[in-house]
């Protein structure tokens, strides 16, 4: 909904703008959808000039239809599938994280979301030698735990320290700070500043509900607007720069005995293309319970309901010995 301004396009002079505004044509949409003969008469402007301006505005502001085959070719060349380092999770996600998409991990407190995120960061940084951006909004990022995971995967200390340097952590505790951090990322990627970020392919956000929850509820709608702003930034980042974006979310209950459902409501449920629910396995006779069940709740490629078992023990999130995906409930 861009406003008509004097220098918006050649041909739209400063004298035309107030005349157009007086007759009710304020934005580009008003201009291209109005009857130009009428406007020419009301504002006593030349019909030819108006048609020329309309052509330029349409060329500047409209989206052009794309051929499906071209889109497919573009997708094949720009999409990468990044392995998470956990074979059973890869099986759940159809061989890994797809760039250009937003993946969501949801679970109750203590279900292992931060552990899985740390594990993904460790394996991407060590195994694939990619730079990783970790946006932490809960204070749950513990560098010593990441180091522990790296030590379990690689023997060489030099490699471990290099891998640690490739993980960049930004602490954002407010939705405006998060938007600012994402904006900075977009600026630095579009200017292709390679010095500090390097080849960035993965952005992990832990968690997105911690910054949105203080704005929702209480009969105010500005929270929803900011949430959708955040959703738009994430999707634009993922699509334009071919990044894989991973977010973590909470779960809530409707009533004290109802089933668990993902937080942030229906509006947010359309943002991630893949959703994985993490749950603790029922405690058996062992005292320490490090097993978690990951089930697929939403996916564009796999049938939902597949479950795998993960172990968030000392070596990072790993699969349990022979993990066969079972058809869940």
């Amino acid at each position, binding site marked *: 909904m861009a406003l008509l301004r004097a220098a918006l396009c050649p041909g739209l002079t400063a004298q035309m703008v107030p005349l157009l505004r007086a007759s009710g044509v304020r934005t580009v949409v008003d201009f291209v959808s109005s009857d130009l003969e009428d406007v020419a008469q009301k504002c006593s402007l030349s019909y030819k000039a108006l048609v020329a301006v309309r052509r330029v505005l349409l060329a500047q502001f409209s989206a052009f239809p794309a051929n499906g085959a071209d889109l497919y070719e573009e997708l094949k060349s720009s999409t990468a599938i990044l392995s998470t380092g956990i074979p059973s999770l890869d099986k759940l996600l159809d061989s890994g994280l797809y760039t250009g998409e937003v993946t969501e991990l949801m679970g109750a407190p203590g279900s292992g979301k931060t552990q899985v995120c740390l594990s993904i960061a460790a394996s991407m940084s060590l195994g694939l030698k990619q730079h990783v951006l970790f946006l932490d909004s809960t204070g749950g990022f513990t560098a010593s735990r*990441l180091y522990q995971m790296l030590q379990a995967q690689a023997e060489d200390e030099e490699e471990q320290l290099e891998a640690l340097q490739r*993980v960049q952590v930004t602490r954002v505790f407010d939705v405006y700070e998060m938007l600012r951090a994402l904006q900075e990322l977009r600026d630095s990627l579009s200017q292709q500043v390679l010095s500090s970020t390097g080849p960035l392919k993965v952005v992990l956000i832990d968690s997105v509900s911690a910054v949105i929850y203080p704005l929702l509820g*209480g009969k105010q709608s500005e929270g929803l607007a900011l949430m959708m702003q955040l959703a738009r930034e994430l999707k634009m980042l993922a699509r334009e720069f071919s990044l894989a974006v991973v977010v973590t979310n909470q779960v809530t209950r409707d009533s004290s005995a109802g089933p668990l459902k993902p937080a942030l409501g229906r509006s947010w449920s359309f943002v991630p293309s893949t959703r994985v629910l993490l749950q603790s396995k029922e405690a058996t006779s062992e005292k320490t319970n490090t097993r978690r069940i990951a089930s697929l709740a939403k996916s564009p490629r796999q049938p939902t309901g597949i479950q795998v078992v993960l172990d968030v023990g000392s070596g990072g999130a790993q699969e349990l010995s022979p993990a066969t995906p079972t058809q869940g409930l």
Partner: protein
Amino acid sequence: MQRDVGSLPLAPALRARLVAAGFQTAQELLDTGPCGLSKEIGISKEEALEALQVVRQECHSDATQTAGAPGTSRKCTALELLEQEQAQGFIITFCSALDNILGGGVQLTKITEICGEPGVGKTQLCMQLAVDVQIPECFGGLAGEAVFIDTEGSFMVDRVVDVATACVQHCQLIAEAHQEEDHLKALETFSLESILSHIYYFRCRDYIELLAQVYLLPDFLSEHSKVRLVVIDGIAFPFRHDFEDLSLRTRLLNGLAQQLIIIANDHKAAVVLTNQMTTRIGQSQSTLVPALGESWGHAATVRLIFHWDNNQRLATLYKSPSQKESTIPYHITVSALL
């Protein structure tokens, strides 16, 4: 800097008007100027000037951050964070089993939540921590100060005197055994009076006072930069009664959690909260769960649940980013929690 108008921290009504008037990026706002802005949207010139100030501040802080100036930015690599974490100390609890499961003690820059039934020892542990944070560095402590925010009125000064006396005696024993100079020097300043004078006590009677106190805390902590512990004893109490609008409660609690984590991070302090337990009635049985709902469970970084098993008190580490889940027994004695 192409900041979208929708993402600027302005008042929501103003933001909605700007978007409806067709402004899309922050640059357009700055180009229009205050007079043009006030004419276009129909606000007064002072409001337009204020809004443009906010926008200019946002864009400038963007620019300084991309130029690399650190300022108050919280960006760093994991390696730098690891070095910071390894240099940080813990607040020991004098109960070695508890310190073990926590990975050394209560961590700084994180929120630790202690849930438990009445009488299980939550306030005891808080008072213990308020004394332990002041142990001088040569004895392995942090030499910090403590802020104690009490909402239930359960802070007993005579109990703190008992704990502090025992702590000073313990340090004196260590000093006698090792006979080092700095130990003796530190003991001169580490006495009962100094311990009590470095615990800053606030009493909040309802949730509004609590929220106000937490909002004023950053200023207090900037003046008293040695504070390393903030205890809120009874975060559930003001929020559990007298609340008709539950969504407002969730919103306030989450806002409070974010404030606390900002305080913990910026001032390198540990935040300890105590929570109550409530019953969840399931299909066949009822279980005790921490109060304040599911979403509050995500606020704390580390969660400890204290419970009874016949006559033995047990502590379970339920949630932690770096330690495994485990349970240990503990006792409460005259001098400390063991």
